[in-house]
């Protein structure tokens, strides 16, 4: 509300604060014997005070008894105490004291408030934060998350999430949406996506892919989407969207897709080529738990069907019908957020023209949502099926853990070649922040097996991911 007199003055104060923090840290690091002093750190205005402490009075004899002799038990404790002393000194003098002094000095210099001023604006309605993400088997990324609520209009929100890494890895998502209706329960928005990364994975198509078939390709994607989302009633949401996508594929990191697959063979890699398409999609979410998971019971039933019609507007015979459905039941076994769930999900795509559907548009499994023991895009086919048993439970006010066991695979059209023996198993543990649906911090450790008809069935995939991700 009340800014400093000039921005120049503000920056000067910020620099002074940072310098003070750095000085405090430097002085403390130079004084490793600081642990010998009492834990009390007396400072004045954020500066350490090298004061000569006054002599202390003698400790009173409070009870008039001589101290009891050390027992054998207490004497024995000196052994581990001496053994662990170096660790204690390191923790106390090189970790604890410098860190506490550093943070104290930073607080005294209002560094957090200055950073908040630098990275947030408009009374916190706009802000910029760094992000980082790493998924085993893919390139890590660092980036930013920018938001601006009520931009231009009280009902208009704007979000931009970007990331980048070496080897020409970039990703940018922009979303601009307007809140509709008197209670803001509906949104109308436009999203733009740009992706350019060399680490998209491809194992082949269908149920018979093997771990050894792993290859990479580069994808350049430009996507524009107009979308509407609104509540139909207390337990239903409707999403409608129209997407235009321009996709380009090229050689990725090694082993690249060309090294193991014949990209000119449409049966092996359908349409490894540039293409445009338009897709209209409608999703219906029928969830008896209500739209807000944080304030409604964990028990309920979810049914989420979706239907999409897509195709290349410039190619008369390249179009398809895509549909998916998820049926799930949840039981809050404790009433306190310990939710047992059973989810069945299938996604199917059906060419309605003569041409093959681009391989990248085929339903896929893996990643952080479906068959989580595998990386994103591990399985591709004209149809997919997963069955998941999950147990989600709170471990902190802002953290949930989830145990999951899934079985699934990608198959030919209409699950034609489905059999239980051709499923892969995946299980693992995920920990996620639960503060916002749109953004979460995830840690996932998953394991995947080869197919159930293998002999022996064994773990052939470890999937680990950590970082900021989209929400549940």
């Amino acid at each position, binding site marked *: *509300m009340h*800014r*400093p*007199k000039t921005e120049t003055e*503000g920056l000067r104060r910020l620099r002074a604060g940072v310098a003070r923090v750095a000085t405090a840290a430097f002085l403390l690091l130079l004084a490793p014997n600081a642990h010998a*002093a009492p*834990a*009390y750190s*007396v*400072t004045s*205005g954020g500066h350490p*005070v090298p*004061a000569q*402490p*006054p*002599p*202390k*009075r003698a*400790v*009173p004899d*409070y*009870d*008039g*008894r*001589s101290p*009891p*002799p050390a*027992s*054998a*038990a*207490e004497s024995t*404790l000196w052994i*581990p*105490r001496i053994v662990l002393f170096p*660790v*204690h000194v390191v*923790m106390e003098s090189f*970790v*604890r004291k410098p*860190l*506490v002094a550093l*943070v*104290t000095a*930073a*607080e*005294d210099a*209002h560094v*957090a408030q*200055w950073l908040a001023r630098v990275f947030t604006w408009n009374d916190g309605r706009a802000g910029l934060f760094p992000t980082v993400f790493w998924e085993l088997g893919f390139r890590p990324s660092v980036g930013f998350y920018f938001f601006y609520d009520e931009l231009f209009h009280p009902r208009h929100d704007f979000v931009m999430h970007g990331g980048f890494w070496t080897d020409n890895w970039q990703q940018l998502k922009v979303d601009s949406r307007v809140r509709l209706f008197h209670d803001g329960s509906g949104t109308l928005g436009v999203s733009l996506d740009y992706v350019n990364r060399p680490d998209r994975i491809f194992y082949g198509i269908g149920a018979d892919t093997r771990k050894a078939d792993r290859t990479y390709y580069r994808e350049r994607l430009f996507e524009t989407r107009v979308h509407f989302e609104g509540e139909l009633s207390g337990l239903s949401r409707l999403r409608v969207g129209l997407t235009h996508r321009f996709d380009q594929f090229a050689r990725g990191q090694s082993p690249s897709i060309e090294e193991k697959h014949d990209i000119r063979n449409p049966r092996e890699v359908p349409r490894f080529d540039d293409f445009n398409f338009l897709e209209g999609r409608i999703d219906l979410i029928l969830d008896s738990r209500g739209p807000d998971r*944080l304030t409604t019971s964990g028990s309920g039933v979810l049914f989420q069907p979706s239907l999409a019609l897509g195709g290349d507007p410039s190619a008369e015979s390249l179009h398809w019908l895509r549909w998916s459905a998820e049926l799930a039941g949840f039981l809050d076994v*404790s009433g*306190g*957020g*310990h939710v047992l769930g059973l989810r069945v999900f299938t996604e199917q795509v059906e060419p309605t023209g003569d041409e093959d559907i681009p391989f990248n548009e085929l339903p896929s499994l893996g990643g952080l949502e479906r068959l989580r023991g595998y990386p994103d895009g591990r399985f591709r086919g004209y149809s997919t099926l997963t069955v998941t048993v999950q147990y989600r*439970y*709170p*471990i*902190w*006010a*802002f953290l949930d853990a989830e145990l999951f066991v899934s079985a699934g695979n990608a198959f030919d059209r209409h699950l034609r070649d489905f059999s239980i023996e051709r499923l892969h198993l995946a299980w693992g543990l995920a920990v996620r922040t639960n503060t916002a649906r749109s953004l979460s911090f995830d840690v996932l450790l998953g394991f995947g097996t080869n197919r159930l008809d293998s002999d022996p069935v064994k773990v052939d995939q470890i999937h680990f991911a950590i970082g900021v991700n989209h929400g549940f």
Partner: protein
Amino acid sequence: MHIRPRDSATRIWALAVTLVALVAGCTSAPARFALRPPLWQDADMQHVGAEPKIHVSGLYADALDQTFLRPTADFFAFRAPNEAQNVNAFDEVPDSSWFTNRLGRHDLDAATVAAGACAEGPALRAEDGPWTVVAAKTEGVTPGFFIKAADGQRYLLKVDGPLRPERASAADTIGSRLYHAVGYHAPCNTVVFFSRDDLTIAPDAVAADDVGDERPLVTEDVDYVLDRAVQLPDGRLRASASRFLPGRPLGPFRWEGTRPDDPNDVVPHEERREVRALRLMAAWLGHFDIREQNSLDMLVEEEGRRFIRHYQIDFGDSFGSPWADDRLNRRIGHSYYFDAQQVLVDLVSFGGVSRPWHRSWDGSNAGIFLYYGTRDFAPADWRAIYPNPAFSRMTELDGLWLSRILARLTDAHLRAVVAEGRLSDPRSERYLLTTLTARRDAIIEYYLGRLVPIDGIEIADRSATADGPQLCFDDLAIRHTAVTPDRVRYRVRVMGGANLDQRLGWALFRPDPERADRTCVTLPLGAARPSARVPVGSPPDYPGRYAVIEVYVQRDAALTATRLSVHVYDQGPREGFTIVGIVRDAEPVHLTSAFPEKG
């Protein structure tokens, strides 16, 4: 030694000590007390020559330190649990710059308890003249400002805010009075009513923004605060006023170590019984925000001496202060803000450990005191907002000490204190009084129901009479109806000799039905008394005069009993017995080994 430590590191080392003790065995003659009066005044208010420095405490730095860094470093320090250092021969805490025995040693009427520290200075009343706003309050979550009353006395004025109105101001007032009554140093916090016209802004009044930049305070700043105040039907506003403490503020005190610049401060704070036991006070009131920043050292000058006095301040979070996120509200008191131990246990147990916050909470009758209740209140397991090194080292005897003081706090005291909250809704007042009383009783029952409940020990009729001198004591468990008298049996024996292992006499009896909570037993027990065995003319502190009178409290014919040992010098039939020490056992003893007599 039996100690129930509060954090995982201390708990692990306590287990190690117990195991080694079991292997090594530990039997020794009880240590003797010197023949001298108990220390009731700690001389820690001596003149401080050098100018003490201001301690700057970081809100996040302290949270980071206490949540992660200090527990990790402490784990490797291998500090075994121990009893507090500043305990006198009577198992009590002497008066000091930290604590003054009020209820613990004196009978205070309800009005005195309700007045708290406010009895020591002028009252703040709007009708006595305008209040001049001199500065805005920039720290903490409650908006407010600093004012100067017509008599020149300064106050911090805080309003309640829109969420659960009246709770914060009532909590600040009631909390300060209760802390004061028990013996802690606390400011005079009081609920005040005033109108906007009672306030004027000083010409040099300043406000500071979030980065510390100061600027002149304007009417809009005052309006910003007052717009959040509770307004009465007659238009007056409600706030809590905290009278400035005398002296110069030196910043918060740490919960561990000592101040290097205070020569009086020689006992590490985490080794002080009254500091450790603050945990139980905070548990009682739900004062979860009892952290470093809510304490204050003041450099005071009294009778020509300048010294540091240690205060508890700001109790406004007590009685169910709400967080924006309900998931945190449900955890308050049961869990730290981030409780690494609980997170880990819940993770690896797949949420299999039942937690209080898993169960739904019916707060329909709690009103503004939502989540301050009695359900799931476990005094020994209560947790503040983050770990505290002193609280982690609180022992059973520390808790027992404070529960003895709380046992002297009557329902009439509580009624008078709660009335100072000036709550507009009688149902809220009734709920708060009921809950405070029930939580106090839960603490009393937890400690006095398991450990030795005896207090008020004295030798009556010291001069020789027909009946002889008597050892008298109160049974606080019976007084507080934590146990019925018919369930109680006392066994008393007198031990003497060079190693205090010779039984000189014993008695077995039940509480007197006429006055069950006060019992007296005539001394000496048995034919021989210690003074009869010493040479004629031996000095008063001659070792042979020493005896220990052990009082065992047995319930329901259990095989164990709690024990209190009264150490005495027997000065003969004429001078009688002089109590020199009182020792309470921190765990029940087996009667078969300690008291083999049948009965």
